[in-house]
């Protein structure tokens, strides 16, 4: 026991003989360990976020969206061609697939909302009462679109918090009317503010939710219809779309894959062109999981390389140290040190180096959340336009330290120290004492 204490003391003393050299060696291990923790934390942060977003869509959902088919023929005299999923599709899907629990038809369009001279540009969403629940919208005052209003095709609307705030800054919006084109809709509810959802692959764009006005879809069909004219860059553009989206909820997650196949078959038989897209969050989730695994392997590989580089640094330094201290080795051997005493001594030094590097590396790794926050803030203040141009994933990155990466990184660093220290140490021990003593 005292033997080991002496060995460690001696190791530390010898390392302190060359403080800068020891520091640089430790730095190599520090960087290796910290980068293992950082890289894994960043990977975890990114994939976790993606996973959460996908889970937000609901693993038991299948989303069918209308998309404008690529313009084969330039707009001709015959006017706009209808595209997208139709009411027929909606009925067919809900009636023929018995694993579908319920289906949400949605129609969205850009419109201007007015209250006298106040005006808000926003998204008019025709939907059913379930929409609020499925998209995690919560009512603040009043109620969301009700079944009766849907049934009666009433001109009722629910406002997003921001829209309500801007159209009715000084009054209670409930019971007031909002003008859309030439129709007046009675405000029956105001929603709580909801965070925007980021876009997730495929046809699902990011959704703001902040400038939404919700009305019964039946009302939208009768009051506005399928033929929509919108002003776009000076010219008028028309399109005929019955539904923007159908969100299907499947009985159980186990049936999602089979149901999605069925949906594909049914839609394919009715649509000649690709004017719709199917998003299966469950598939995305699986993909995200695979991506995450690949991320971990990839990051781990990079980190492992940096650790090996650190280990080579240790070996390099220890080989130099051993050569430099040949005389000392000779003296110690003459005074009674066995070969294994010499091995132990040099191994202790490398282990001290790698433990110090490992511990500081773990501390450095744990700062990753704090440092990224700080970096983000600094960058936003110094180079706002650069930050603006960065993709969302990078801008909102928030590393999550993977707990097992800490003992792993530390263990590997000590292991690396042992492995890379073993050769110099055995080389030191193998020296002939007489020759070592003669060494200048």
């Amino acid at each position, binding site marked *: 026991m*005292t*033997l080991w204490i*002496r060995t460690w003391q*001696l190791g530390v*003393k*010898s390392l*302190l*003989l060359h403080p800068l050299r020891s520091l640089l060696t430790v730095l190599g291990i520090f960087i290796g360990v910290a980068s293992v923790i950082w890289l894994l934390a960043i990977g975890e942060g990114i994939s976790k976020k993606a996973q959460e977003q996908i889970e937000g869509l609901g693993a038991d959902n299948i989303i069918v969206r209308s998309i404008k088919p690529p313009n084969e023929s330039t707009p001709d005299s015959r006017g706009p061609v209808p595209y997208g999923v139709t009411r027929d599709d909606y009925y067919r899907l809900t009636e023929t697939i018995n694993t579908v629990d319920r289906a949400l038809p949605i129609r969205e369009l850009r419109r201007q909302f007015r209250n006298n001279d106040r005006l808000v540009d926003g998204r008019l969403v025709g939907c059913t009462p379930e929409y609020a629940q499925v998209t995690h919208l919560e009512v603040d005052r009043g109620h969301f679109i009700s079944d009766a209003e849907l049934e009666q095709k009433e001109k009722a609307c629910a406002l997003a918090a921001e829209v309500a705030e801007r159209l009715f800054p000084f009054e209670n919006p409930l019971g007031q009317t909002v003008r859309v084109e030439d129709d007046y809709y009675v405000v029956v509810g105001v929603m709580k503010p909801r965070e925007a959802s980021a876009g997730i692959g495929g046809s699902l764009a990011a959704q703001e939710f902040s400038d939404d006005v919700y009305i019964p879809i039946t009302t939208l069909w009768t009051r506005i219809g399928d033929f929509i004219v919108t002003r776009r860059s000076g010219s008028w553009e028309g399109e005929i779309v019955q539904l923007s989206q159908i969100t299907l909820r499947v009985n159980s997650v186990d049936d999602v894959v089979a149901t999605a196949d069925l949906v594909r078959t049914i839609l394919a038989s009715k649509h000649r062109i690709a004017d719709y897209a199917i998003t299966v969050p469950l598939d995305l989730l699986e993909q995200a999981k695979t991506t995450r695994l690949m991320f971990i392997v990839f990051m781990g590989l990079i980190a492992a390389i940096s650790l090996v580089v650190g280990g080579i640094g240790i070996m390099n330094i220890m080989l130099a140290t051993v050569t430099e201290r040949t*005389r*000392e080795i*000779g*003296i*110690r*051997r*003459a*005074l*009674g*040190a*066995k*070969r294994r*005493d010499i091995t132990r001594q040099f191994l202790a030094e490398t282990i001290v180096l790698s433990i110090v590097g490992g511990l500081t590396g773990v501390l450095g790794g744990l700062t990753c959340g704090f440092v990224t926050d700080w970096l983000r803030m600094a960058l936003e203040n110094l180079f706002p336009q650069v930050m603006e141009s960065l993709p969302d994933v990078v801008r909102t990155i928030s590393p999550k330290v993977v707990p097992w990466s800490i003992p792993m990184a530390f263990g590997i660093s000590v292991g690396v120290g042992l492995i890379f220290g073993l050769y110099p140490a055995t080389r030191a021990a193998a020296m002939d*004492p*007489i020759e070592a*003593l003669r060494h200048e």
Partner: protein
Amino acid sequence: MNLAFRVEELKKDYLLGGETVHALRGVTIEVPEGDYVAIMGPSGSGKSTLLNLLGCLDRPTSGSYFLGGDDVAKMTDDRLSEVRANRIGFVFQSYNLIAQLTVVENIEVPLYYGSRLNSTTRARCHKLAEMVGLGDRLRHRPTQLSGGQQQRAAIARSLVNDPYFILADEPTGNLDSVTSGEILDLLSRLNREEGKTVIMVTHEEDVAERAKRIIRLKDGLLQSDVRR
């Protein structure tokens, strides 16, 4: 009288580039306890080789070397280390103190490797340092000491394990004549007053004069063995 050691027909060959160098070609010496022997001889005559064998740093090619009843030629590497740690004191020409250790710690080294370091032996280290006149330099590092002081520390170190004998390879080779005189006085005193056996290699006749006995080597053979 007890023998400190006895070597008989000691031979040592070195292989050098396919050729065999006969460094020692059959040396027989008996050294009783309390003797003070100077080994002399021209360069290449085998003095260092003999000292290395006596110091158990190497094994003879043939012949026997009895130390405390054991044949050194048959010892394993680890056993040789143990013997060095517990039974032999070394004094080198270039002091050979360990740079990162203090004077006391340097004196402790043989005890450490002989697993005999405890509070009693530690106190002994202090006593030895005082005896060689370094009582006020215990916490100094070798680089903070003069050559003479370093050699004193080395002598204290050679005594710490209560060895069968002290092997000194040109202990005054790096010192000026005054300091040399002091070091030689110290060795003589140890021999005279403490009864320590001293084997010393030297080039200089006047240094050798201090010893009780002068052994001359030539071409790996004993040329003369004179007791004065």
